[in-house]
């Protein structure tokens, strides 16, 4: 009876490791597999075209954000429809720096000149420093997310209401960016970057370097989040998701646990936004508003909201499909995406990862495995 629920490896799918009350994170088979995948992915610059490499790099950057959503939504049960805001803050932070770095003494970015601005807005000034920009990529979304979520969770606003507030935040953020055209670049956003810290972004070496940087950050975030999800913190986060009141009446304050998850999610979204901006060469309100924020949730729903690997797979799959469908049939993409979302929610609540887990649990899959592994159990 006890054996029936034991899996060979503790995966995030099943919540806490089942091997013991506080079993530490183990570098088990899924991790080994992930490392092999990372090794293969690291060879991509020699395997795919420059265009495909750029797409892959963008999608991997988005995978960082998706893994953050696994922590926030899958583990914490907090649905955020406003991740685009944090993605955008990261993207704009690095873009502002690159705009400023390209200027001579006393010059203003081109769009500011066209709008008749005669001085740099004060909040642009610190981003002249590359250090401020790089820290800002993480700190601006992180601090904002911590303050916002603390204010909201402390008042015990959750569920649908929280989702609606974050959606309103995404709408407000995109609207603000468009309306403040003279200092934000408006609808066109910020684009036309040449160099980052003296490196020519157009060079092949830069493209490869940025790709590897993205891959390394994805791998690092994967391991870090895995450790976190297997820690006592992760267990409590899931416990709060399943019974916030029970946890509160066991003497824990649920608010900081949720704030930490939301903040980590925002920092990862900010990093993703910055990397995406470097790969795509543009950041604009169209990438950060309500629709992109919902799309981000769909990547994770498709991949599996409790699986880090699933979230990356979902992000890659949905975005590859988007690239294919929207170039062939531009009008159809949103319908296709909506359909996929409905199908996943109704038929596959665990996403791809849930499907893989279910298949791995069927008796024929176990028998197949015992044949391959060579021992029957």
């Amino acid at each position, binding site marked *: 009876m006890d054996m029936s629920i034991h899996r060979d490896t503790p995966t995030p799918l099943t919540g806490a490791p089942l091997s013991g009350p506080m079993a530490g994170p183990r570098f088990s088979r899924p991790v080994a597999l992930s490392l092999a995948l990372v090794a293969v992915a690291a060879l991509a610059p020699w395997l795919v075209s420059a265009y495909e490499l750029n797409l892959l790099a963008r999608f991997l950057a988005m995978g960082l954000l998706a893994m953050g959503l696994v922590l926030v939504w899958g583990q914490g049960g907090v649905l955020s429809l406003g991740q685009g805001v944090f993605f955008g803050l990261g993207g704009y932070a690095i873009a502002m720096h690159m705009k400023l770095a390209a200027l001579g003494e006393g010059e203003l970015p081109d769009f500011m000149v066209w709008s008749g601005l005669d001085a740099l807005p004060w909040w642009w000034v610190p981003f002249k420093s590359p250090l401020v920009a790089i820290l800002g990529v993480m700190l601006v979304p992180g601090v904002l997310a911590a303050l916002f979520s603390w204010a909201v969770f402390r008042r015990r606003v959750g569920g649908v209401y929280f989702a609606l507030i974050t959606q309103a935040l995404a709408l407000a953020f995109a609207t603000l960016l468009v309306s403040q055209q003279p200092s934000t670049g408006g609808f066109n956003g910020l684009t036309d970057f040449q160099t980052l810290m003296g490196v020519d972004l157009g060079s092949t070496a830069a493209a490869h370097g940025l790709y590897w940087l993205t891959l390394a950050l994805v791998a690092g975030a994967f391991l870090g989040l895995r450790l976190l999800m297997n*820690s006592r913190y992760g267990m409590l986060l899931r416990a709060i998701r*399943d019974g916030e009141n029970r946890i509160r009446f066991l003497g824990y304050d649920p608010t*900081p646990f949720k704030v930490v998850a939301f903040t980590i999610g925002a920092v990862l979204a900010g990093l993703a936004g910055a990397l995406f901006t470097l790969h795509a060469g543009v950041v604009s309100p169209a990438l950060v508003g309500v629709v992109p924020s919902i799309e981000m949730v769909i990547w994770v729903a498709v991949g599996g909201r409790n699986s880090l690997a699933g979230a990356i797979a979902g992000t890659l799959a949905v975005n590859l499909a988007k690239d294919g469908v929207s170039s062939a049939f531009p009008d159809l993409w949103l319908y296709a995406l909506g359909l996929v979302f409905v199908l996943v929610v109704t038929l596959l609540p665990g996403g791809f990862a849930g499907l893989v887990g279910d298949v791995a649990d069927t008796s024929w899959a176990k028998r197949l495995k015992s044949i391959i592994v060579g021992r029957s159990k």
Partner: protein
Amino acid sequence: MNATAPASHIGTIDPVTNLLLAVDGVTVDFDGFKALNGFSLTLDRGTLRVLIGPNGAGKSTLCDTIIGRVRATSGRVIFKGQDITHLPEHEIVRRGICRKFQTPGVLSGLSVVDNLMIAARRDRRWWCSFRQGVDAEEKARVADILETIGLADRAHIPAGQLAHGEKQWLEIGMVVATRADLLLLDEPTAGMGPAETSQTAALIRRLVGQHTVLVIDHDMSFLEQLDARVTVMHQGQFLKEGSVAAIREDADVAAVYLGRTKEEKHG
């Protein structure tokens, strides 16, 4: 209004006495409906008290008020000599009160042992949740409780897969695991058969002494097995207090229950 209530002179009580909890003239007003109406109750350390009363008498509301889930409109809750009426819920729990809810409140996604480990954790501040390692004492305590509640062989299955009665025991185990001085057990035998009910009564009797226990229940045979002092509530107020036998014979208590029964029959 409060003539029959126990002493309401809490301000003068010395905190070093045996008094653990004092509910002092608490009123809870839900938009004009007084779920508790100037109710008072005192509990000494290491004692067992049973709270009975017809539906709507305010028993669960009393537990909710003690634990901070519902806030008193007026009156005070004093625990270990300190006013806890307005503390946040988790602060109240950290001071040593834990409650078992009417419907089992186990964390169904976590394993049985993880449920207990979370409850047994002494340091519940969030930044301590990142530390690795398990406190040996907590682990031993959890193993002990697993034996006591008879779930040692199911320690690693998800709590959601337990039978109803087992969930009730698990939640009692969790409440005990917190080392709370005061345990509030709201209908611990709901949904249990006679054999399970007897086992639960034995379990609770073993807890008394080390803990102070307040039990809410309806089941008369369960009350007899507990053999504790009984406080009867009616319409948010104190009605009677005495031994099980005395309460059984009491005309006022009978009238309250019978009156209720008649109303229900006609309604």
